């Protein structure tokens, strides 16, 4: 007899990582709308393979790999059709008298700096600093070795640090 998965079993299975899939898609595609479409496409891909999913020892890592590949394909086809990648420029640092306001502004400034990182560094920062995955898990998801991941992560973190220090000269000195 064939084992078939019921929809509610599938929903339970994907529940632990559905937000992570969306966040990685958003990190790569930036637009919430597109990230939502991509996340749903990923879940549909998993649903079509639902009877094989139990075989994966790390389904979450597999889902993240599917997400990465799907989003990179989307970006490629977007570039091919001459649509420009959503890319926001840095806002010029400005002097604010209210420190609280400036701190909030600095957080959204980090988001803009993240968007300006190269795609691979963006993914690695997302998986490590936001999601808190271990290096071996990230290596599996991105099909890279751990040393290469550390090199890219260090480069990304330093870029973010340098931009933050540029942004806040008054606090630092």
């Amino acid at each position, binding site marked *: 007899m064939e084992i078939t998965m019921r929809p509610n079993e599938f929903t339970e299975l994907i529940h632990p990582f559905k937000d992570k899939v969306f966040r990685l898609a958003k990190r790569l595609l930036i637009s919430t709308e597109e990230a939502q479409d991509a996340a749903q496409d990923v879940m549909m891909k998993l649903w079509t393979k639902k009877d094989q999913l139990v075989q994966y020892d790390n389904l979450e890592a597999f889902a993240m790999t599917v997400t990465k590949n799907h989003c990179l394909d989307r970006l490629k086809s977007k570039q091919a059709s001459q649509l420009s990648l959503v890319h926001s420029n840095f806002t010029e640092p400005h002097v604010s008298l209210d420190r609280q306001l400036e701190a909030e502004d600095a957080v959204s400034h*980090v988001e803009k700096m993240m968007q300006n990182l190269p795609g691979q560094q963006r993914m690695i920062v997302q998986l490590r600093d936001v999601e808190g995955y271990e290096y071996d898990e990230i290596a599996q998801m991105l099909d890279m070795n751990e040393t290469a991941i550390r090199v890219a992560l260090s480069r990304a973190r330093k870029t973010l640090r340098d931009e933050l220090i540029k942004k806040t000269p008054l606090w*630092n000195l």
Partner: protein
Amino acid sequence: MEPMKINQLLDKYFEAQTNTAEEAELKAYFSGQKVAEEHLPYQPLFVHFAEQKKMEAPEWKPQRAGKVRPLYRWVSVAAAVVLVAGVSWQQYQSARQQKAEIAYHQAKDALNLLSAHFNNGAKEMQHLQSFEKAVNKIFE
């Protein structure tokens, strides 16, 4: 926490040499109230990571809900098959009717031709009959 230790951790962090526990320490420090003046520039970074982690996937768009789609897909496939089969059956039937009509007319023309020739033949037969009568009379 001592600023010295935080500085050490930050140095390791930017070299991507911190482990998960050390990064958790940094996250806890920067989300707390007692952040030293010298570390303030880094705070937005860790605050941003923590905020990102809270972001949830929006609700699924109803028209793309995966639970019902496979069923709808099969229903639409079945409907398409029925439609195509119906249309082609009708075309097949009308083509067959046309063929039958053509065949009927051809057969009718052939029979007409045959009957015309047959009638000619029958006239000749009459001559033959009178000839035969004449011959019979001679031999009687």
